[in-house]
């Protein structure tokens, strides 16, 4: 790992230089609404944001994607769609959201490789920005991570007042930084210390904690516990928590066509919708909201760790913040953790 600094004075020029050779996604703000968008100029960027409303997973795993093209009908044919290899950089991604990619990597890049996700993943440089201002429902520290963690990004920027400390985390990050070498100087120890101080401060601001220890084993014994029904009662069954989650990756595959052309398209899907598992026969393995809600929490905290050795939750807090009915994963999981069986 290499630590560099760039002064805030030179920073705008760096961004504008990156834009020349990369498709740069960065947070922008409009009427209090933050999101990652392709920017064409430094000024469009807004770094005062807490976190984007949609997780940046939407950049690498689009909500709607074409799988292939077709000529529909009984005499139809199929045509592959070329996959874009455009080089992208995602700037100012939060460490928690970057971890989201690490979590869903084994799904898309496991035994069967998803070509769309792979192309996007390979062609994107993740440039993180440490969180100096975590908000009320952040809890990344519960998973042993930090709001200033560079573990999941290629390069990590941290705002240290006059400068940004730039930590180069991967080979990919190194190559990227080398392209723009003139902007960076090696970091003096005091700047590294400044980052550490910032990190400590930020960690202190995170007040909520989810007790993850032993939760998987606990859940093994709680499949039929009434707690799921209790929470399902107030769940209204919308897709907000899944669509805003940086690790939710389920999708639907549908055909769309006109008379003479068409495509097979995949769109995000949500396990909270009854149609998600409904068989043609009308039989639904998860007929009630209780089943669906339970499956969602089990998938994150039990099934996923069983299959991929990691809890499918990054502590970004979006599902808590935007749940219309205050279903709070921290509250629920802590109750599970503390449950005496």
């Amino acid at each position, binding site marked *: 790992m290499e630590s560099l600094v760039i002064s805030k004075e030179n920073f705008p020029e760096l961004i504008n230089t990156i834009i020349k050779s990369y498709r740069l996604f960065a947070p922008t703000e409009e009427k209090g609404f933050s999101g990652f968008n392709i920017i064409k100029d430094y000024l469009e960027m807004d770094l005062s944001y807490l976190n984007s409303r949609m997780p940046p997973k939407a950049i690498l795993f689009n*909500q709607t994607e074409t799988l292939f093209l077709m000529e529909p009908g009984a005499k139809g044919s199929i045509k592959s769609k070329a996959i874009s290899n455009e080089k992208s950089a995602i700037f100012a991604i939060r460490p928690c959201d970057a971890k989201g990619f690490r979590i869903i990597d084994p799904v898309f890049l496991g035994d069967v490789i998803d070509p769309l996700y792979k192309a996007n993943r390979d062609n994107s440089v993740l440039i993180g920005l440490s969180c100096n201002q975590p908000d009320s429902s952040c809890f990344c520290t519960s998973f042993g991570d930090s709001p200033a963690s560079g573990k999941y990004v290629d390069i990590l920027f941290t705002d240290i007042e006059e400068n940004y400390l730039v930590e180069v985390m991967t080979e990919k990050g190194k190559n990227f930084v080398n392209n723009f070498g003139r902007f960076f100087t090696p970091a003096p120890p005091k700047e590294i210390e400044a980052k550490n101080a910032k990190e400590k401060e930020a960690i202190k601001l995170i007040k909520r904690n989810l007790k993850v220890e032993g939760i998987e084993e606990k859940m093994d014994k709680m499949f039929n516990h009434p707690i799921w029904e209790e929470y399902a009662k107030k769940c209204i069954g919308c897709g907000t928590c899944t669509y*805003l989650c940086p690790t939710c990756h389920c999708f639907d595959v549908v055909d*769309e066509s006109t008379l003479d052309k068409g495509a097979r*398209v995949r769109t995000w899907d949500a396990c909270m919708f009854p149609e998600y598992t409904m068989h043609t026969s009308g039989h639904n393995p998860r007929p009630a909201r209780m089943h669906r809600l339970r499956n969602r929490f089990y998938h994150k905290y039990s099934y996923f760790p069983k299959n991929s050795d990691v809890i499918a939750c990054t502590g970004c807090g979006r599902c808590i913040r935007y749940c219309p009915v205050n279903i709070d994963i921290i*509250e629920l999981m802590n109750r599970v953790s503390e449950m005496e069986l």
Partner: protein
Amino acid sequence: MVDQKELVKVAKETLARKDVKYIIGYKKGSYGFQTSAAFAYTPKDVEEFIFTPLCNKNLAKYPLKEEKLPLKRGEEEDKRKIGLIVKGCDSRAISQVIQENGMKREEVVLIGIPCPGVIDQKVIEKRFPNQSEITEVTEIDDDYVFTIDGKEQKIPKQELLAEVCKTCEYPNPVLYDIIIGEEVEVNPKAEYEGIKELEDAPLENRWEYWEEQFQRCIRCYACREACPLCYCSTCMADLLEPQWIRRSVNISENTAWNIMRAFHLAGRCISCGACENACPMDIPLMELNKKLGKEVKEMFDYAPGLDIEAKPLLGSFNPDDPEEFIK
């Protein structure tokens, strides 16, 4: 505001009735300024009930959301009533649903609470984004008062009040079995002031505005699920054959969905603002609903959710309805 002790007392009495299975009310939320729906089965559960300016969710959705799974052999259907705490808007929702035969009057026991307006969740959370500690807000005169980090905050009511409450014409429950607290005074308000600017804008600008809004829509259907009047067992949007709306998320399908949602609420929306509250992408859905509410009032002199005996607007007609647009 309602006295908590009285609320608990009335709720307990209602729960004690033989024909009531449970009561839905509000309780403290899990963090910050949240409140949560509470399902009380025992007197102990009822102790948790609160009613504060943060009780901004529409509970009228829940009786409609009750899932009736197939009965096991020998099991009998529980036909007892559901108790429900209703504000003005919630009671209108229930009244509208009853009018449409979505539920029967005898399925619910309504505990009405005259509502002096509730806080807009999004506004208060944006103002205090770091507040993770559970915070109680009280209303004192024209201010909301609460404590943050040991410091008392006093914020003028108008700054935090939900937009729908500012123009609410029916803060007092229109349908109830029991009522707690004193009636709230209704000030005649300019209900449709908020949409005036957009109404007056040129056609193209209006489209640009909505295009930008709908572009954001992620089709999570939180608006639908939160709406007390969206209770169809299968939504048109979920049908595969015929498929009214494609699943892809783009401006065409998103607009079609939003037209469908708004149109299906024409003459039915009771202006509780639940859709807009629930929308994770901050789409101003209430503007569409308000506009249709206004048109319906002007064209047909109709307001929804006031009379359980009335006929649904689009299921009825008057031979003299306006028809200047017809060739």
